[in-house]
């Protein structure tokens, strides 16, 4: 029993160290301006205040960036679902010529990181006039190969008899997808939506490249830019970090079973 308690304490200590930076971020964001720049560094605000948040939203336009991030991530999620779900299902269950070869090609493409094509993609978007727009930010989310495989993996478990029965009843392929397949795919839809939402919310390099208008910035781009102007204002920067990351941390906490379950399932099979 004591061994159990000791090792539990070890796990708790490890967890406390892991969470310390995030807790410190929240604590400092509530300090008076200048309070964190002392020695020894204070851990708890002496006189908690929301002044930093007030400045962020009133003077730095944080509300706009928050809205931008919400919009971009929501659109990215919807678009990714729209493009990925039918494709993943088709690659799992519909028999058509070239399917095997296409799936193998896509598997090989997984090895190529997206950054390799960033410069030509920028030129491509510039040519069609999508630079400095959300359409430009969203485009890479249309071409998510991992998402297709996530859906395909799940769709493989749909029994063929079910689809054949629907076909014999005279259902069209589209009706079948809408009314038979999508309800079964619901867990995969939730997992994919969660991954894309978090991924697009946290994405930094591509929005940094595509967006030049400050009004269009997403939270990470805005925070990085603020960090270069106001590096000395620790408390303000921590409040900005809280606004940027706490929404996704809360989303993760609320849906952590699904999230970790989805990742575990993926790595067991892969």
């Amino acid at each position: 029993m004591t061994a159990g308690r000791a090792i539990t304490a070890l796990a708790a200590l490890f967890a406390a160290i892991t969470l310390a930076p995030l807790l410190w971020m929240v604590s400092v964001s509530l300090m008076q301006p200048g309070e964190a720049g002392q020695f020894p560094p204070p851990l708890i605000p002496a006189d908690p205040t929301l002044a930093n948040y007030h400045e962020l939203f009133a003077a730095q336009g944080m509300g706009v960036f928050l809205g931008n991030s919400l919009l971009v991530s929501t659109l990215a999620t919807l678009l990714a679902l729209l493009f990925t779900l039918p494709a993943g299902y088709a690659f799992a269950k519909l028999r058509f010529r070239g399917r095997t070869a296409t799936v193998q090609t896509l598997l090989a493409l997984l090895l190529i990181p997206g950054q390799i094509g960033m410069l030509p993609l920028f030129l491509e978007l510039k040519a069609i006039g999508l630079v400095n727009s959300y359409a430009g930010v969203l485009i890479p989310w249309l071409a998510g190969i991992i998402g297709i495989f996530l859906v395909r993996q799940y769709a493989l478990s749909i029994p063929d008899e079910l689809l054949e029965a629907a076909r014999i009843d005279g259902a069209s392929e589209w009706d079948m997808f809408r009314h038979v397949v999508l309800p079964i795919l619901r867990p995969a839809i939730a997992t994919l939506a969660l991954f894309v939402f978090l991924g697009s919310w946290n994405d930094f390099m591509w929005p940094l490249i595509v967006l030049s208008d400050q009004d269009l910035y997403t939270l990470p781009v805005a925070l990085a830019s603020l960090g270069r102007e106001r590096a000395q204002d620790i408390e303000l920067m921590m409040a900005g970090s809280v606004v940027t990351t706490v929404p996704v941390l809360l989303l993760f906490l609320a849906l952590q079973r699904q999230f970790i379950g989805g990742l575990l399932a993926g790595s067991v099979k892969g």
Partner: protein
Amino acid sequence: MSATGVKAERRAGWLFSAPALLAIALFFVLPTIASLALSLTDFDIYALADIRNLRFVGLDNYAELLADPLFWTALGNTLWFVVLGVPLVLVVSLAAALLVNERMVAWRPVWRVAFFAPYVATLVAAAVVWKYLLHTRYGLVNYVFGTLGLPTVDWLGDPHWAIPAITLFVVWKSFGYAMLIFLAALQTVPRDLVEAARIDGAGWWSRLRHVTLPALAPAAGLVTILTVIAMFQLFAEPYVMTEGGPAQSTITVLYLMFEEGFQWWNLGTGAAVAVVLFVCILAAALLPALAMRLLRVCRS
């Protein structure tokens, strides 16, 4: 099944996958191939203004890169990140996985969520937080070092310490994901085998050493490959924490591509950096499997 049904299914197969395939072709495959073509040109700000200024220069960009000390600095920095980061990620994530998997530990799901939280946190925000944690004078890390009687370090301001400091951050940020891979592998270690070893009198350490760890070897290989690839893709970390400094000591290969391409608009040179990056990542992904196969061929 009727012939029209087969035909309908075939048509649906293409119609359902066409939008995604078209997007992948236009916005992923085409740019990747174009990167190769772009790296053979002198595409710069003048070509950006007027495409007629574009010239084919063969392998000149690559020759220039190989002669550029900054390229070697970036490559060396990236390798240093790999050398420091891979063992740290392996050890920390394995320890976390063993803790969370140990049945004697109470509240295991709580610890699992705690260990995983940094992976979910927004990279830029977390990097900003760590930048201040690592501050020479007011940072918590140096404060803890001071109270423990250890020498304090100018983490992000000293060219020798900036990479270890950022590596520390990257390990904190990413070990939760590697932990999940180990956890998935731990589910496949047969409990009977562990119990049998226990009954035979094997202690905790020898059970770990002779039963658990051998079963985790494939997972460790996967974590190694994924971490190497992740280290080659570092960009936001140095961008936010050090801007590549001090004295270019934290410039990575991807950072160099960004600077060449989007800061100085030398898109030809930038594309050449991208191709080099691609070759490195491909090697990291494929060489281990190749080496294993060679080893097997040699043994048989």
